[in-house]
């Protein structure tokens, strides 16, 4: 599929409090993927990213559109290694890094929010590091 590639350089924030700055990636923007897939229905406001092994994570659609997210397959100039989520992972750098689902297989658009794997166990539905939204109930 010949979708345009982008090369974002971003900071990433892990929920266990470390951050890594100026990481460089290559991937396809989620905007381009959604466009190629036929766009988004008016009432679809949420996304679930799913990977092998039953892993899922949920996010508001607004957090993966308008240049905020990619499906990345290259990291630091080379193919994304398996231990970092390769061959492809979701990349949503403005949210805590667990939202950037490794080994991503697809994105499902929903009209309602559906807590994913870690969110069912108490992690936040959105995960904004600037508001320290780690767990359900964090404002």
């Amino acid at each position, binding site marked *: 599929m010949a979708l345009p590639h982008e090369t974002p350089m971003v900071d990433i924030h892990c929920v266990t409090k470390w951050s890594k700055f100026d990481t460089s990636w290559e991937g396809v923007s989620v905007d381009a993927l959604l466009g190629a897939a036929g766009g988004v229905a008016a009432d679809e406001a949420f996304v679930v990213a799913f990977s*092998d092994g039953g892993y899922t994570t949920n996010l508001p659609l607004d957090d993966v559109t308008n240049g905020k997210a990619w499906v990345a397959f290259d990291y630091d100039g080379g193919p994304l290694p398996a231990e970092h989520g390769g061959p492809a992972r979701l990349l949503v750098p403005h949210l805590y890094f667990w939202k950037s689902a490794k080994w991503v297989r697809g994105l499902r658009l929903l009209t309602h929010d559906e807590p994913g*794997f870690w969110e069912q*166990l108490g992690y936040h539905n959105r995960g904004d590091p600037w508001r320290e939204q780690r*767990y359900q109930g964090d404002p």
Partner: protein
Amino acid sequence: MQTEDMRLDGNAAGGPLRELFAMDMTAAMATCSGCGTARAVGALLEYGHEMGLILRCPHCNMPVLRMVRTPRFLRLDVTGLSFIAIDEPVS
């Protein structure tokens, strides 16, 4: 797909499970509700580490036990666990 080299096993979960169950759980025989295989908790595959605890069945990969514990809450999902058997050690 998960990098298998990185996984640990139920032995590494011994501390958190001891806190929860008030007894050692690594020698407990756990039956997976997915495939019915019974294995010692110490022989289950452990993932997750930074975020929480996930123990998976080595036979069918089903999450047998999932746990997140913080100072403010505990969440425990055991839908993958249908039975636990513990034998007291012979003294």
